[in-house]
């Protein structure tokens, strides 16, 4: 399995292309944008893009959908029935989806947004904005922060230390590193969170 990381300057977001060289199929996680570099990578590898997985419906993670779906006939998967005006196959917590020759496990981790999902493919966890290297996703209340921290601890950080965290922003990490050093999981951190406006939330 090949992973291609693309850094989108729109929202400083991470876009991931997961390619299966056996089936020559690929999926995209969080298409923040669709540009020549990403398209070139799909075409150069002769991939058929079959699926798009959306961790949450914020513009800087889905803006590329419009372009992508003009080019490829891909199924969109998200927590909601539609994203950016495009119909989606709605996913639920604990579900597994088989596509592109891989199994995608779905974890619901609300807090940063009500529709936040984490996807696991093999030992890779695509955490969107729920979990970043060293931090948890920004929330608008301490209630949401506590909810998010609890879900992360019980569903994501109970997995193997070596599993890889591929977040929606910033550098990658591993489950073991986040369990030991994530600031957002420190006792009392979530309770101190206050509401604050930010364009790129």
């Amino acid at each position, binding site marked *: 399995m090949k992973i291609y990381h693309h850094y989108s300057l729109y929202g400083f977001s991470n876009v991931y292309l997961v390619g299966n060289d056996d089936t020559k199929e690929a999926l995209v996680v969080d298409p923040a944008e669709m540009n020549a570099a990403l398209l070139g990578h799909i075409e150069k590898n002769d991939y058929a893009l079959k699926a798009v997985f959306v961790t949450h419906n914020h513009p800087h993670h889905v803006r590329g959908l419009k372009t992508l779906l003009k080019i490829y006939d891909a199924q969109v998967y998200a927590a909601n029935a539609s994203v950016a005006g495009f119909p989606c196959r709605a996913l639920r917590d604990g579900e597994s989806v088989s596509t592109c020759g891989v199994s995608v496990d779905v974890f619901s981790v609300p807090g940063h947004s009500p529709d936040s999902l984490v996807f696991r493919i093999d*030992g890779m966890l695509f955490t969107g904005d729920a979990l970043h*290297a*060293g931090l948890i996703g920004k929330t608008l209340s301490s209630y949401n922060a506590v909810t998010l921290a609890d879900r992360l601890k019980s569903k994501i950080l109970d997995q193997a230390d070596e*599993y890889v965290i591929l977040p929606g922003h910033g550098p990658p990490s591993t489950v073991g590193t986040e369990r030991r*050093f994530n600031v957002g999981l420190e006792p009392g951190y979530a309770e101190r969170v206050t509401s604050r406006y930010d364009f790129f939330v």
Partner: protein
Amino acid sequence: MHTFQRCAEPGCSSLSFHGGALCLAHNPDPAAATAVAQTLLLAEDVGKDLSLAGMSFVGLDLSRRKYIGCSFIGATFRNVLFTGSTFLLCFFDRAYFEACDFSGANVQFGSFGGSEIVNVSFENTELIHCNFDGAKIRETTFNDSNLYDSRFIRGEIDHCDFENCDLKRVYFIPARQSGVSFKGSNTMEAIKDLEHLYL
């Protein structure tokens, strides 16, 4: 991407080592497995999807190589040269580095979380989207490097130089620091407290 296959030894939660079904600790001949991996590393200019967790690297010259999607989790590096090498999506979590040279290297989208880094040169290095959270870094230089979007959260940094560095979007919130120099670096563009997060 490197394998996430578990070690075949019952009860072991580690990942299997390159070329086998067991982790290095449960391999009946770890020296032979390490020698095979070392020969491969020295023979090839490009390493893809290698699973070398826990391996010990001593005195190797791996300059001007390229590594993609490799796991070096928990590995030990002593007197290793990575001068001018490229690392994409490589993981060095919980690794130990001593007297190594990454000068002129290009490290993108990698993780050094929880590692221990002693007397290492990252001079003139591209360290873009790199995770140093929880890392204990001592007597190490990052001078003249581009650290764009990298993170140093809850680590311990002692007597290190970050002079003439690009610190744009760098999260520099260590648990402890002493004797750290930022001379000539754009510290105003770094995030140094949790009140000013972009996320």
